[in-house]
């Protein structure tokens, strides 16, 4: 198979795995906590907590992470499953975390909103919009001070560009000339509110530019485009060029959280968007690259099988002991709880 086809198939495989992961998690969360004006139900769900799905945004996580090494660092948002998986985390431990089990990436202490795998440089999802940005520049600052070759990828949503830390973090990265790639995952909505009318000026990349962070805009549903642009920008960052900004435009297929029907959104808009499903686009490209349909279906099948296994393992996994609630907090003053 041609090299570009091989790479694309690899990108597609990761996207398929994320999609399968999100779909499975979505089902497992039905009956879980509903922040959506519905009162919290008591119907037991396998995944109890708020679940922010990245369904439809897979190409951004995959295209960027394909250009990161395992030792590079990454900060994420509340919508972090895709970033975590694409950075190389183990799906069994990820799913176990969503299920709140002791075998989860975070020992069941964080759940979806705080999913992290430090062993692959994934420094965590975050429950606070834009909060990952200062952490990302700080990590990049440490890498520079320690003269390390790694870089940091900082993911955030379009809604985050209106929070102060966006400005402070970008300015910081420029002032100290840090190795960080800012990735604005622009799905054009913030929870239930379209971001456009809440954002002054010409948007994220223009703001970045005004602070001295050069960058580019890309179709976030075209994994090849994201991959190519990320490759270019990350090369510049690795080359000591300082921070760069990637503005990837995409679409959120699901509600803000898994139990959100997103009734506030025009269904025609959703239907239209589904035509630009990043997996569809990648499949088309694979076919154009001469990859056989069976090969593609085989990938889908493997992904489904892998995630089904993760679900089974997660459901069978042990719960954390209550005593675990008192560990991993602080050494100084530990044990002195009341």
């Amino acid at each position: 198979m041609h090299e570009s086809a091989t790479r694309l198939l690899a990108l597609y495989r990761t996207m398929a795995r994320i999609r399968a992961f999100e779909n499975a998690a979505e089902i497992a969360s039905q009956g879980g906590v509903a922040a959506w004006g519905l009162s919290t139900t008591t119907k037991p769900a396998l995944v109890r907590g708020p679940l922010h799905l990245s369904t439809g945004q897979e190409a951004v996580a995959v295209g960027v992470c394909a250009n990161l090494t395992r030792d590079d660092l990454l900060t994420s948002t509340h919508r972090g499953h895709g970033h975590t998986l694409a950075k190389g985390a183990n799906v069994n431990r990820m799913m176990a975390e969503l299920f709140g089990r002791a075998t989860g990436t975070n020992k069941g202490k964080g759940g979806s909103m705080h999913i992290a795998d430090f062993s692959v440089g994934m420094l965590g999802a975050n429950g606070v919009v834009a909060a990952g940005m200062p952490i990302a520049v700080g990590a990049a600052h440490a890498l520079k001070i320690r003269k390390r070759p790694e870089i940091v990828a900082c993911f955030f949503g379009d809604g985050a560009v209106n929070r102060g830390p966006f400005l402070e973090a970008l300015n910081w990265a420029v002032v100290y000339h840090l190795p960080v790639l800012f990735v604005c995952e622009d799905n054009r909505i913030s929870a239930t509110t379209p971001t456009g009318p809440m954002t002054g000026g010409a948007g994220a990349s223009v703001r970045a530019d005004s602070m001295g962070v050069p960058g580019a805009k890309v179709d976030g549903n075209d994994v090849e485009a994201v991959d190519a642009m990320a490759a270019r920008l990350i090369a510049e960052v690795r080359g000591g060029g300082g921070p760069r900004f990637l503005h990837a435009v995409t679409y959120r297929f699901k509600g803000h959280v898994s139990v959100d029907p997103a009734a506030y959104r025009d269904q025609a808009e959703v239907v239209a968007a589904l035509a630009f499903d990043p997996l569809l686009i990648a499949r088309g490209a694979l076919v154009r690259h001469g990859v056989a349909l069976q090969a593609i279906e085989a990938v889908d099948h493997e992904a489904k099988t892998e995630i089904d296994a993760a679900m089974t393992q997660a459901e069978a996994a042990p719960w954390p002991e209550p005593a675990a609630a008192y560990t991993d907090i602080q050494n100084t003053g530990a044990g002195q709880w009341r």
Partner: protein
Amino acid sequence: MALMNYSQAAAAALSEAMTADATVVALGEDLGRGGIFAQYRGLQQQFGADRVIDTPISEATIMGAAVGMALAGLRPVVEMRVVDFALCAMDELVNQAAKNRFMFGGQGRVPLVVRMPIGLWTASAAQHSQSLEAWFAHIPGLVVVAPAAPDDNYGLLASALESGDPVVYMEHKELWGVEGDVVPGSRVALGVARRLRDGGDVTIVTWSKAVPTCVAAATALSTAGIEADVIDLRTLWPWDREMVLASAARTGHLLVVHEAVQVGGFGAEIAAAAAEATGCRIRRLGAPRIPSGYSKPLEDESRVTADAIVGAVTTLLQR
């Protein structure tokens, strides 16, 4: 009299205030969709997007702008979604809103109600589960309210909107669905507690979601022959010293119960003040000093249970 849930009661109080006073406005994220707990449902349709304002994700400026609005003739209601996000607006609340009137020598006032829901909320983990009422009770210039029932959420929000001082208004995220009767037009005075049960053996002071738990515990204690005087503080600043101290003096034993972390919680203030004033025996029950865990067995460690309350009362009375 109307049957409403805790969320609807707040919406009704706000709707009536906005009808009565054109200077009352509300601002926050996603209010146009009714707010994430339906506590603003229908208000934007009723009053328009100029008065029920959808904002960018800019907590610091939501709070700071509200201070400016208040100084320029409006009575803003700020929605912070959860108290955890209000941490992005602490300078604006504590340095700007709370100190404005004093700092400028009484030239202006800041009539502002800041709603910041508190508490555990099924598996919402460490950054969406905090109860930080103790922080605000410590800050001069702030009023702190934490209603536990629909009628109180209606009557206290209405009073908060009329107070003219910055009010930190803390609803509980697991109480939205609780139903109860509300008397339209009723008011609950800020600073007045609510006695939920009469008893002479022990005084139990509590607020917010711990209230129903304390009532349940009191019922259990009663079957064991222990009669508890259960007081819902409702307003943490100013708190109802009169009712609490009189009860503590009478029973000689005070237990303060809250969902917030016990260490440095506001229960310490109530307990210490009561012991200072009446010499009563005291005990506190709150969450251990741990972040809230996501998984149920971990999260449950942060929950105050009726059993724990019964246990605390028993120990308190033994001494």
